[in-house]
């Protein structure tokens, strides 16, 4: 039970609790807050794994931008407590069943696949930002450029959606 394990369990618990509360909360803002908790916890986990840069980006982009956007929208639309309809039949008992099955499968599959790397798990490389940037701008330069294009498109799309059609 090393210190890192303790930290891990604390953070993991935080994340899971956050996720659960995301589901249980009735008001979107609370859900958003719990999601933020999850993200911060994940960032902590990344730090624990030595992925500093990813951790920082996780908080800056997810916590600092995306979730702010969510909160902003919620405030803008003044979203109230979510109403509890159940029109869809699929999303009832069968949905629940399926979800459980899916979670089981995911867990099983990933676990099985993880067995193979468990041994390698000790190679804790402190990933320097330099290496990551090297990768992005050398090996992954074309995907990177593509993402830039994607973002441009997203901006345009958002703009088009946002502006009210003039009549």
């Amino acid at each position: 039970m090393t210190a890192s394990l303790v930290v891990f369990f604390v953070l993991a618990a935080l994340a899971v609790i956050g996720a659960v509360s995301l589901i249980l909360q009735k008001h979107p803002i609370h859900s958003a807050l719990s999601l933020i908790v999850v993200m911060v916890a994940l960032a902590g986990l990344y730090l624990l794994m030595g992925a500093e840069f990813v951790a920082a980006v996780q908080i800056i982009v997810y916590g600092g931008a995306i979730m702010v956007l969510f909160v902003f929208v919620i405030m803008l639309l003044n979203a109230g407590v979510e109403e509890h309809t159940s029109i869809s039949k699929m999303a009832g008992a069968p949905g629940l069943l399926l979800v459980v099955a899916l979670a089981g499968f995911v867990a099983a599959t990933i676990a099985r696949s993880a067995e193979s790397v468990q041994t390698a798990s000790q190679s804790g490389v402190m990933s320097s930002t330099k290496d990551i940037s090297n990768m992005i701008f050398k090996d992954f330069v074309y995907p990177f450029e593509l993402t830039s294009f994607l973002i441009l498109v997203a901006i345009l799309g958002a703009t088009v959606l946002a502006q009210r059609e003039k009549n």
Partner: protein
Amino acid sequence: MNSFLAANAELLITIVKIALLLFVVLTVNAYLTWFERKVVAHMQSRWGPHRVGPHGLLQPLADGVKFLFKEDPTPAGVDKFVYFLAPLLALALALTSIALIPFGPDPIRFFGHDIYLGIAPPDVNIGILALFAVTALGVYGVALAGWSSNSKYPLLGGLRSSAQMISYELALTMSVVGVLLMAGSFNLKKIIEAQAHHPEWGILGWNVWPQILGFFCFFVAAIAETNRVPFDLPEAESELVAGFHTEYASFKFAMFFIAEYTSMITVSCLCSIMFFGGWLSPFPASWTFTHYLPSAILIPFGLWVIWDGIRYETIFGRIILPGVGTVIAALGAVFVVLPGVNEFIQGPFWLVSKILVFLFVYVWMRGTLPRFRYDQLMSFGWKLLLPVSIVNVILTSFVILARMQWGGK
């Protein structure tokens, strides 16, 4: 007992540091308000606070007391949890961000422990990123406060602040990239050392000169991030009563207050570290005599304080001020006599003085500039600040590339 000490020395030291920092920051905050009011007052040719204590020096204390003892009503229909969470969040994040700032290059040896000035060790790999991460979260305090208090003005204030912060965060981050490129690291210490690359250049080696554009963008964006004039729309008195903290009273309000001033300090620190060489002296390294500058400033100042104090007939004036004066003067004297201490004090001295300058600029701007209109704010952020900072990044990278190509070595 001793063994316990030995075992958790690091922990203890950290805790002590935190307490110390907390105290310092809070005091500084308190006196920052005094400073602000004074300066603005003089700019508007008023006296400012001068009733409580000499030069109104006890005003902050009074305010603090007032904050603590005021009634704290919770409006009806607020979202309790968030309502309480928001100020805490704001304060906590502000303090965290300042905790990440190194105040001096080299540690104090203390019972075999290296104790750095500042809570985090100065060379965190992703120092600046971590700072940004924390400041990025800062927006929640305001936004949530605005939303949770379940009332029009705060909601508007919250909306504004969140929008404003998202918009200006981009510019903020982009404007720093230039500096990062030049330093080749996120590490604050490295960034500062990069500015001391030519020890003889002194002030000319700082980042402001090559990164003047970046500095401009950064400073403006930073002011916006801290919701200060001329970007204080979230709390625009004339439109939104008091913006996001309209519904807050007494100590919760104080938290917001402190948070704001703390982040001001943080920003000043960042400015001086990023662009003004942090703890570097503006003079060439060879001018060793400049190392006596601190004492040269402190001793006269202390003497002046003594002299100023004894003119008063109040107890405070008679006793305390001279006391403080002697302490200050003594400090100056100590530096002179103990060169080791003197050397050690150089960094913090310069850093603090730079910070003070920036704080003054803050106040100065508040005294002079009118508030932006909301659309102006947005278009300024998106159409001027962001492009300029991006251009800055591009230019910088080109220059660096050119140096790599033809600059040799």
